[in-house]
Each structure stands twice: as C-alpha cells, then as structure tokens.
C-alpha cells in the first residue's frame, strides 16, 4: 500500500536522525527522566551564519525533457534584530536566470528558463544568511515605531487561503471575547490553536494552508502551513496584523529538541513556516504554535502529554520567542510564477518547476529532483 511505503520512508528518515552524534542532542539524550528539567529558552545572542545550497535537476516529465523552467525561493526577508540575508549565487545551464520580486510582498525567486533542447536542465544556488534567536519580553512594552499603514493593511488582508470573514471571524470572535488588548487577544488565539489543533503526520509537505476548510471540517489536524496560517488568520480576523514566514530549518535545536531542528546536513524536506504577530509596544513578535504541536507528537518518546515538561517549555517560549536555526525565505501569499500558465501558489516555500507546461510535484524532491543542504559557516 502506498501509505505503508510513505510511512516507511518517513520512519527511516526519522530513525536516521537518531543516529546523529550524541553531542548534538545532549539534552534529548536524557529525554524521559530528563524531560522534567526541559529548557527551551531562545534569547538573542550570537549571530550564526549559514550557507544553503539548493541543487535542482529538472527531471523529464512524461518523456519530455523540455522546454523547462523553474522558480526557486531566495531568502528575501530581513529583520535587523534577527535575520540578515546574504548573497545568492548560482551556476546553471539555463538560457536565462532572473531574480524576480513579487510585487505585493517582495518575495524573491530565481526564475530559470532552459532552451527547449536542453536535455539536463540543472541549477545550483548558494545562499548565505545570518540569524540568531529571538525573544520579546512581553511584560515590558517599549517605544517601538508604529507599523506603517501600508504594512498594517497588507498583514490584515485576507488571502486566497486565509479568509478573515465567515467561520474564521466567528472563531476569532469566540476566542477573543472578553479580552481587551491585542496582547491578550493574540495570546488567547495562540493558546486556542495549541489546545485545539494537532499535528497530522499524514499531511503532505507542510500542508495546504486552507484554513477555512480546516475550521469547517472541525478536524483541526495539519502541519505548520495549516496550523500557523490558522493562527495568522485568526489574528487578522481579530484586527491584529500577523504574517506567516515561509522557510526551512537549517540546524539542530541547541536546546536538544529533536523535533525542532534539522538533524542532517541534507534539509530537502525540512521546510517550516513560522508566524509573527504585530503588537504595539513590542513590534513583530515571534510565535510558532505549530511547533508546540510538533513537540507533542514527535519529540521522543512521542505522543507527549500536554503537561510533559518539554511540551510546557516549548509552549511557554513559542509565544514571544523562537530559535535561530531556521532560514526565512519570505512572507508572501498568492504568488504568481512568471512565465507559468499554472495557478498561483498559496505560498512559495518549495522549489517549483515545469516541463512542457507540466508542473512538477514540489513535495516530491526525489522525483522532481532537488536537494537542499545547509552548513554553518565560520564568521
């Protein structure tokens, strides 16, 4: 059965991760008894620099090698206090390679077009960036410059998959009833998402992010693109600017959480999206309710109770903080791929390619084919 094969593949990948050197998981090694003293406390400190190499070979589709084109996300998000994209360089046999910027969100991608006769379309893109942990002390509002009217409007707006009316608005109203400040409301939404959703291992990729369907179904299972998009949509519906950031994990968790890091240099399937909410007096605040549910399901030994120390530590931290072991590509939605007649993307987190106008399955890197590798580079 296909599902068995898929599960076997996933199981093998997870098992391989456990074979990493013990020092990478000093704390995870004490899971069980040790989880009583679990610590997950990101705080801004040393910047780390990473290099990510995305190697793409556009496989023939239905016997045709071309004409081929591809669109690869580039790190195009920046935040002075925690994320600085570096340079992108590439080598390719494409006839053209153009950096394209989405007009609404500024999301960047490398658009490659190969000559019709190219038998082996390929590109290798190297991107560098610097990042570090984030944490906001939510007990101490400061004097943060107000969000511009343009940005406020953009990050309150509905998207194709994140409506802010109907069931989303009704749910947000229920969750935030009686709360007065944006901080109270957003925290209530965070706690609600953590309490009422679950991570569904069978969801393909990171999920589709169709939050109205998620709420309507009454079955709130998914992965980060579902659960954090739900958090974002509920905040927007409550009048609080919020956004999804689409990216990829690049390094193990320094806090020993196996489920919250990339545990191998090959990160082809380590895509992860996080969320930010704008709170006056604090600015953009890091959040990641989906990762709390990931800890619940996956952190060894798995299927942890909500009062497990590791879950509690992650839940406490991930409204206001996250760890700097992750690359942020962009915060865009409804991204049109230039030169493609196919539909817009709900978000751009995976490399995309088409051969003879047939779009490859971006969630199947082995058939596509692409690999993404990450390494930390010395400053």
């Amino acid at each position, binding site marked *: 059965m296909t599902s068995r094969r898929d599960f076997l593949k996933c199981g093998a990948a997870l098992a391989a991760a456990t074979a990493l050197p013990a020092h990478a998981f000093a704390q995870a090694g004490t899971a069980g008894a040790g989880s009583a003293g679990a610590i997950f406390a990101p705080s801004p400190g040393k910047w780390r620099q990473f290099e990510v190499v995305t190697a793409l070979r556009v496989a023939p589709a239905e016997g045709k090698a071309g004409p081929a084109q591809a669109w690869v996300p580039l790190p195009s998000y920046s935040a002075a206090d925690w994320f600085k994209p570096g340079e992108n360089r590439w080598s390719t046999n494409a006839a053209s390679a153009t950096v394209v910027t989405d007009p609404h969100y500024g999301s960047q991608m490398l658009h490659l077009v190969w000559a019709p006769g190219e038998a082996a379309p390929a590109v290798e893109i190297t991107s560098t960036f610097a990042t570090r942990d984030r944490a906001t002390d939510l007990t101490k509002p400061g004097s943060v410059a107000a969000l511009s009217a343009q940005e406020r409007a953009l990050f309150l707006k509905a998207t194709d998959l994140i409506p802010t009316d109907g069931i989303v608005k009704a749910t947000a109203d229920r969750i935030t009833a009686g709360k007065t400040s944006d901080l109270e409301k957003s925290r209530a939404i965070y706690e609600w998402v953590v309490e009422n959703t679950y991570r569904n291992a069978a969801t393909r990729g990171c999920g589709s992010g169709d939050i109205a369907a998620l*709420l309507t179904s009454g079955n709130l299972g998914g992965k980060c693109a579902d659960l954090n998009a739900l958090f974002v949509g509920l905040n927007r519906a409550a009048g609080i600017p919020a956004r999804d950031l689409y990216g990829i994990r690049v390094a193990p968790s320094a806090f020993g959480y196996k489920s919250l890091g990339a545990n191998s240099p090959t990160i082809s399937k380590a895509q992860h999206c996080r969320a930010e909410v704008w709170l006056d007096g604090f600015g953009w605040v890091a959040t990641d309710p989906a990762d709390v549910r990931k800890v619940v399901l996956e952190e060894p030994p798995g299927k942890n109770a909500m009062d497990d120390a590791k879950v509690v530590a992650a839940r406490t931290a991930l409204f206001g903080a996250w760890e700097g072991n992750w690359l942020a590509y962009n915060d865009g939605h409804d991204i049109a791929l230039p030169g493609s007649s196919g539909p817009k993307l709900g978000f751009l987190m995976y490399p995309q390619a088409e051969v003879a106008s047939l779009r490859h399955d971006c969630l199947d890197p082995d058939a596509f084919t692409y690999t993404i590798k990450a390494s930390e580079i010395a400053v």
Partner: protein
Amino acid sequence: MTQATTRRSIAAVFVPSAPAWRGATNIMAGLVLASLASLTPGAGVAGVFPASPASPAPSLAPSPAPTLELPSLDGGIAGLAALRGRPVLVHFFATWCEPCREELGGLSRLAATRDASAPDGGLAVLAVDVGEVKLRLRRFLDREFAGRPPAFPILLDEDRAVSRAWNVSVLPASLLLDSAHAIRLTADGPVDWDDPAARRVLDALTAPATAPATDPSAAATLARGLPPLID
C-alpha cells in the same frame, strides 16, 4: 537498520491518537459520523457543514450544484455541462489521503457497471483531484492502477477553487446530483460503493420513473444514506 526496527519506529511516531489524516471523518472516530450525520439526504452542501454560524440551516430541499469546469487529466476542459440530463456522482479526493485511495477501486467498479444505455444515460461519475499537480496524479495512477485506469474522468482542481466553491472541507467527499444537477445526497468520508445498499441508493436516485423527493420509498432509501467503507 532492520525492517522490524523501522516498523517499530513507525508505530511509535505515526499512530496518532488524533485522526490519521487531515480533514477526513476517520476510521477510528469518524465513521460513526460518516454513516450517520455526514450522509445528509437532500441537504445540499451547505447543510453538511453546520460548524459555521454563518451557514444556512440544513434544508431538505435539493440545492443546485455549483459550476464545475476544470482541466481534465486526459487534456482539455471537462465538467458538468456535458452531462446535462444525467445524474452525476461528483467525487472529491486527493492521492495523499489514504481513505481516498482505498475508495477509488470501488468507485471505479461502480463507474464500470452503471448502465450507460439507460434512458437517462445512466449515472456518470466525475472525480476531482484536489490541490495536486497532474504529474503527481499520473504517477499515482501509474503505480496504483497500472493497466486498469479508473473508469471515470478525473479533473484537476489544482488551486482548490472548485472544491472551495463546493464547500468541500473533508476528503474524500461524494455528492450525488440528480439529472437536473441538484445535490441530493452528500457523503463525507469513504463510501463502500460495492455494498448493495449503495447501489440501492443510486437506483433510487436514478430511477427515471420516480422522483425521489415525492416517492416515499425512494426518499426513504435516500434517507438511509450511503454505507461507509470500513477497512
């Protein structure tokens, strides 16, 4: 690593207490729903999803089906318009959804056995693959249906616009349309199309001499709904 080790790690990680796939009424918890509440005769799509306070109250009157026109797996554009005058089973699925995969075989057998020579052209089956690219679907069919492709056309709702318009929020979902293309029955979750009970429901819907809305016996058959597929 041995196979046994791998399987143990799967059991530890991939047997969630929560439902095993997104959005579906599932085998562990959902089939009660699938066999009762979610099989809603005459309710139309809106009545099946009462979670939203904004949703209209369930209605017993058939509701007209939304437009359905999409690229076909075999090329070109296809949809309901060409099936005017025939009852249609519209089936939404995805290849990643395990109960969807299990249901497709029965659906194909159903499509192959319905009588196309009936006066009304017989029941037509129209499947819609939700949110997936054509290459993935092709690869899936080549692997799972090698040499015996499904006996119904498959349309591609790559950006989910049609499934949203049809208010599909769980997969698989099946909607039975009468020959006027009014929605008469909706099933969330997998249906056992080989079960004689399913065939009786389809007969009640498609019998040319009866109008199920006014014929008590046909209406009663429809009201019993479709049998869930229990693996």
